[in-house]
């Protein structure tokens, strides 16, 4: 198995775990919990899980491009990654649009959206893009739909 494929599988597993843990924490805390000072602990735990995960992901990308095993990522791996980035960008923007318009619609009568939703959208975007990208890399890799 190539290094790129291994990394995509590891990223999928890691971000799926982070996503489930974050969802459980948010459900446990609730929207009000995220918006109140007492929800500080939940916010700290979420930040402590998600932000290092994102930074480690960047470090892995750097390592595969510049580290000892840089030669193990070839032109096809780079094409797959590039195509995954293009598709992930469109999907994430569409998701952001749909969630925003959904919140607008749901809270139109009240005239204000609970501030907890902003927190969920901010960290949710990081988790979503970090999970989506390796999943797309694997799909594109196995389907063989890129060319050099």
């Amino acid at each position, binding site marked *: 198995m*190539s*290094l790129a494929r291994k990394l995509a599988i590891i990223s999928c597993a890691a971000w799926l775990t982070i996503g489930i843990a974050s969802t459980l924490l948010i459900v446990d805390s609730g929207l009000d919990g995220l918006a109140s000072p007492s929800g500080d602990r939940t916010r700290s735990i979420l930040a402590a899980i998600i932000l290092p995960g994102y930074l480690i992901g960047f470090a892995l990308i750097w390592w595969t491009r510049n580290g000892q095993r840089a030669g193990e990522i*070839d*032109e096809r791996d780079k094409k797959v990654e590039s195509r995954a980035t293009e598709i992930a960008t469109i999907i994430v923007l569409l998701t952001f649009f749909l969630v925003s318009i959904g919140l607008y619609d749901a809270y139109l009568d009240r005239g204000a959206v609970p501030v907890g939703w902003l927190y969920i959208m901010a960290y949710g975007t990081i988790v979503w893009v970090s999970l989506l990208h390796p999943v797309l890399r694997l799909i594109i890799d196995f389907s063989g739909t890129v*060319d*050099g």
Partner: protein
Amino acid sequence: MAKARIKNRIRELREAAEMTQSQLAKSCGCTRQTIIMLEQERYVPSLSLAFGIAGVFDVRIDDVFKPG
């Protein structure tokens, strides 16, 4: 626009040269997965990789790749 397909003789040339996919991948600086995809004609390589592959077999590029 229809996707251009390129046929290749990589498997035939590799077997004639008694090389494994890993050896060929190492010789032309790509991964074994890329060689597998090339042999299945599910990947069209860049010009530099195509020249690299032809160079490994010491043949002309159009002896390896043909329009499909």
